[in-house]
């Protein structure tokens, strides 16, 4: 088996530049309205080896997050009076339509850290570390917001003290339209994107990223769309946590 030397390619035809997105009225491939999120399936406690875990499925985006700790910080770290948060995101080799070498996503890992850090009561576990590890089983678009929401659920499942849960939603701008919770195909054709992570009950934003060209009016519109969706997603997350908690008793 000499797999290393052989070069291979995926037989799936190269994506054609789809023109429909340029029209003002086009139909999303899954039939959703522009301001409609994919149905969310959430479950906690999938990984027994971890302190807490959660699985999230939004359409074809499937993510598992495990939380370990609070546990001993790595030897090389300095003493700290408050706890530490450590995040890592990796993708499976089959997460996308073309096979990739499964690897860590450093940029997303840093963004996940920023989105969660403000919501965790780090003083409640001095000196120790909480590890949040995510594995993207399938990448179907809006990966980062799904990971962030799923990670917050896993942290709650692990019993880590938090000011509030964190829900996260993104909006993509294609031409004149704002599309919420975009799929990968929609993301590929974006002119700009907007991601918000917030603590719905406290009405506070932990992270906001904006890329591409936006007018002020569009930003306001996107912000409202996202905040509203985050609060709805927050309710779904709470009912998931309560469901697990009630079955435990």
């Amino acid at each position, binding site marked *: *088996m000499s797999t290393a030397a*052989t070069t291979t390619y*995926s037989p799936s035809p190269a994506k054609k530049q789809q023109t429909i997105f340029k029209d003002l009225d086009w139909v999303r491939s899954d039939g959703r309205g522009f301001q409609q999120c994919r149905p969310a399936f959430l479950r906690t406690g*999938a990984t027994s*080896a971890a302190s807490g875990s959660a699985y999230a499925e939004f359409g*074809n985006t499937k993510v598992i997050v495990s939380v370990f700790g609070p546990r001993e910080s790595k030897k090389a770290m300095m003493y700290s009076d408050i706890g530490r948060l450590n995040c890592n995101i990796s993708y499976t*080799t*089959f997460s996308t339509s073309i096979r990739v070498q499964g690897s860590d996503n450093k940029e997303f890992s840093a963004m996940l850290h920023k989105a969660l850090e403000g919501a965790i009561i780090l003083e409640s576990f001095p000196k120790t570390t909480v590890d949040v*590890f995510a594995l993207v089983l399938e990448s179907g678009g809006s990966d980062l917001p799904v990971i962030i929401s799923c990670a917050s659920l896993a942290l709650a499942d692990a019993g880590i003290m938090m000011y509030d849960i964190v829900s996260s939603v993104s909006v993509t701008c294609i031409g004149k339209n704002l599309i919420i919770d975009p799929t990968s195909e929609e993301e590929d054709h974006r002119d700009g994107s907007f991601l918000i992570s917030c603590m719905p009950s406290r009405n506070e934003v932990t992270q906001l990223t904006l890329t591409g060209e936006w007018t002020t009016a569009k930003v306001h519109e996107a912000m409202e769309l996202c905040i509203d969706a985050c609060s709805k997603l927050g309710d779904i997350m709470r009912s998931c946590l309560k469901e697990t908690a009630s079955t435990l008793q």
Partner: protein
Amino acid sequence: MAEKATEKTGMEGEMEVDAYRRLFPLPFYERHLLDSLRPDGRPLSRSRDTSLSLGAVSSADGSALVKFGDTTMLAAIKLEVMTPSKESPDEGCLGIEFHMPPICSPIVRPGKPAEIAPVISKQLEDAILSSGLINLKELSLISGKAAWMTYVDIYCLNADGSLFDAALFAAVAAFSHLQIPLVSLSEGGRVITVSGENLDNPAKELVNKDKRNLTLHSIPFSLTCVLHKNYILADPTAEEESIMETLLTVVLDSSSQLISLYKPGGSVLAFKTTVQDCISHTRKRVKELQKILSEALSDMEID
């Protein structure tokens, strides 16, 4: 070792059972073994509840999700096109990789991969090739020009012992779920998939009209046992593997051929009778796994 600690140490009163189990794992287990019952309530030779669901990954050509108790494996197969080697122009290739991402166990951390993962990859590769599960000739598309490179990636999502057994079952189940995409040859000489509306009226002739599934010859199944004194514990959990270190893995195929008998050291010696007992436990397990696989396949046909 701490065998004598079974005597009352005077500490048990003040701590929870879990704490005693953590501090004195071997005496804790030996007490259970005396009653021929494991802490999770299983008799020694019983495997954990096993489940299988096929087609869990929509971005793959074949996939399977397997659970042995809490041990969870997700196997997915993706087919890509390769140019066959000159020595074997009519053969495709298999690439098997076992992954233990940091989510699966507290001992794996990013940048610090599990030591066991490449060893299990190698064992899986050996078992699948030795059993002759796949005829590599069936992976040929155009002799000397194009063949399928079959990437089998198995991810451990939750590690709780018997990783090789669960990974092998996930891999063979993913093979039986594999649907080869229909392909044709483009002008540039590349093999491309034909799907959707193009299927009824393909612009080019299909290369592989009647080869959508692979013929699986003899399917390998395995059972790992932990040996401790005279006890044989089938399908051990991670805790059992770490406390009683002697492991023996038997791989048998569907026609009861021995594909592998793997015992990497350990303080307990395997006598002929032990070997025979482990093989007969494996025979029973093969029947169970065969049944689970065929039920999952027939459920899929109904859908």
